């Protein structure tokens, strides 16, 4: 049904792959739609982890991506879970209290938390 809608609404520019690629793993910009960017932080790059496709200008998702800003007092931004579809393959994170960025959780920090 979507290809038919794609053909019908192509004149309005409504036909693209941005919905299909939203939140998908990426390593380069070519992995995403041209209206999106591959949001991959430097920390993820160093850890050899893929980023995710998101709308251009969005940047990394706060509190849900390694190396991105976080807020330990906000449950949705305290790095407790990742936006990456890797799930359990994505390393566990914690919000670093001094720099307020998501970092890989150390066993000590986990037990402390």
């Amino acid at each position, binding site marked *: 049904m979507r290809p038919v809608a794609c053909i019908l609404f192509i004149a309005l520019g409504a036909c693209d*792959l941005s919905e299909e690629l939203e939140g998908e793993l*990426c390593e380069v910009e070519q992995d995403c739609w041209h209206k999106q960017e591959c949001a991959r932080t430097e920390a993820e790059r160093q850890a050899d982890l*893929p980023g995710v496709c998101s709308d251009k200008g969005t940047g990394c998702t706060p509190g849900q991506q390694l190396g991105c800003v976080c807020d330990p007092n906000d449950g949705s931004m305290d790095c407790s879970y990742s936006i990456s579809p890797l799930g359990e393959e994505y390393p566990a994170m914690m919000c670093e209290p001094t720099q307020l960025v998501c970092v890989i959780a150390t066993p000590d920090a986990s037990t402390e938390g």
Partner: protein
Amino acid sequence: MPVLTTPVGLLLSLQLAAAPPAPPPPAPGPTPAPAGEGAVSDLAAEAPMPAWEPEGGSSAHKSTEDITVVNKKIRNAARGTIAGGAVAIFGIAAGAAGMVMFYVPRKQLGDLRDKNDGMLPPDDPKRQRAITTMRVAPIVAYTGLGIFVTGVVTALIAGRRFKKLREEKRTSVAFSPVPMYRGAGFNAEVRF
């Protein structure tokens, strides 16, 4: 009676010689025949001239060009019609290809997702090719549509011109009664 015959002959000769010459023929005057011809001429002048009734309608037979020039124009119009049709076919093929290109990338991405546990593999050539194909699809589709429209318009214009020129070239015949001296005739004009 030979004595008598000689003087009689002589007298006859003299009488004939002395006789006044025959009067000259009368000067040509009005004769009854020319009066009749004049009436016929008037009728001929008043006779209606039939208008051409071309086969192709009132627009036909306006051209007085050389037949070779007309033939060349007809050939060019025919070529234009064929070329327009070919362009239209090419355009519709390109448009159809563009439409297919809308469908294929989604299917490729779906297959890739199925093979990788529901996730698209990053930095994968197939994934990037599907995305590129999807981006090119509207360009191909709209270009094909434009080519199709151009071809159809060209074929229609050239086809109409071809038909008009061919009808102009067709033979036409006009018939008309013509009054003639001592009767009437039947006039036929043929135009090639």
